[in-house]
């Protein structure tokens, strides 16, 4: 077992333990919220997943840009891995949001700017992942994916600006959904800890996905090699016959 592998086994262990510890902190360390009580505890998972997804999409765009500059497939694998893991975290955000909103706001969904924006983000990265599955040529797939990843990332602030302007005109019935700036210090600590745990989990997930993609690349190369040597052997065999 290589050092690299040992390191990642350790990281996986850290991710599992810190997620478990975060679960404990969320339910037993974080104080009870005055008006929302238990349901507020979903906030730690919700917010830290959202932040992690943000980090993931930054990695997607950065690795995509690096791929376009260097044309090294490893950057594309990194972008894809971060994109897939980030999409999973965005899904957590989109799912935990309504679960919290139903008891607190009384509705599952409202077209509040932040909700609308997250949903558009989710759609864009769903399209990003689909794009990869629908292009067969490897190099082409990497290029197209990188271009879309960058375009989508640049678009994110623009979407935010327009949605906020649009909703600003028609105020929604639910005002100030999120917590205000005065978050309890213990709550802050639990949130930061949960975010840290989520980031480690993200790194482990993305790394595993990357390994899978690297193995695929290796397998493709071996197949190609086998085909080439078979093609090279063809005239010899024909001569013998």
């Amino acid at each position: 077992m290589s050092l690299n592998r040992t390191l990642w086994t350790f990281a996986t262990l850290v991710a599992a333990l810190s997620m478990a510890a975060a679960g404990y902190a969320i339910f037993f360390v974080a104080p009870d919220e005055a008006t929302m009580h238990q349901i507020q505890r979903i906030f730690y998972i919700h917010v830290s997943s959202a932040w992690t997804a943000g980090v993931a999409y930054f990695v997607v765009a950065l690795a995509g840009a690096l791929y376009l500059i260097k044309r090294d497939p490893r950057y594309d694998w990194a972008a894809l891995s971060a994109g897939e893991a980030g999409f999973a975290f965005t899904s957590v955000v989109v799912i935990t949001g309504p679960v919290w909103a139903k008891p607190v706001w009384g509705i599952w969904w409202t077209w509040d700017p932040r909700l609308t924006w997250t949903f558009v983000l989710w759609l864009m990265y769903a399209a990003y992942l689909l794009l990869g599955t629908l292009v067969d040529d490897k190099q082409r797939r990497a290029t197209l994916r990188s271009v879309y990843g960058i375009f989508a990332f640049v678009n994110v602030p623009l979407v935010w600006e327009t949605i906020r302007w649009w909703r600003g005109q028609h105020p929604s019935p639910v005002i100030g959904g999120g917590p205000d700036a005065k978050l309890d210090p213990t709550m802050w600590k639990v949130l930061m800890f949960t975010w840290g745990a989520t980031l480690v989990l993200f790194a482990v997930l993305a790394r595993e996905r990357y390994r899978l993609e690297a193995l695929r690349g290796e397998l493709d190369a071996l197949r190609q090699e086998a085909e080439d040597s078979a093609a090279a052997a063809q005239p010899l065999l024909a001569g013998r016959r």
Partner: protein
Amino acid sequence: MATPLESVRDERLPSSSSTSFPSSTSSSSRLFPGAWAIFAKEVRTELRTRELLVTTAVFTLVVVFMFSFSFDPTSAESRRFGPGLLWIAFLFAGTLMLEPSFLREQANDTLAALRLAPIDPYAILLGKTLANFLFLIITEALLLPVFSVFYNVSLLPALPGLVLVCVLGTLGIVVPGTIFSAVTAHARMRELLLPLLLLPILTPILIAATESTSALLSDSPEWPAMGLKLLAGADIIFLTVAYFLFDALLEE
């Protein structure tokens, strides 16, 4: 294969050394003539069949007709729902129109020929974008009077503002649309994939264009300064990103 091309290049550019290709700086001077040539080619191809324009125009008519069943199309209701309806129709028309933009080049592998041409690669994007812009604007110009009659909304008083919104909004649709048409040209299920990629990216355009049109068509019309600003901003951002990314799309 490369020899005749290089010799042509040498005749045209006697100052450049005999073997090296002209650098991007010397070919960038050919941006506008190159873009114009591509644009003229696109328009000429379209005028020979008129397939794209006719099909899209009929399609938008169908969309506008079908929408009349989704709400009570009185004048007041139409002012409320009309702008959204119009821009959804334009967005759909755009995604349909843009799909063949790069696909047409595939049949005879003519994109390779375009890439070999002694023009700035950005000229290909610019020429195609301009052509798509023209086609979509024509579709919109055909649809707007029909919408006005069907839904009992008078467009004439708001016309100058409406033209501006249409120009900026259409630019916002065709710039990413042309890029993504190049992206999806090689994908399976591209007819479905293009709208899937494009429509979420176009959220800002849809919101800003719909809101601006609403402001212009309402009972007490206002000048949609903020909406126009957002549209123009989106156009500039899209054009800039497209400029940096298109090279990579052609390289592969």
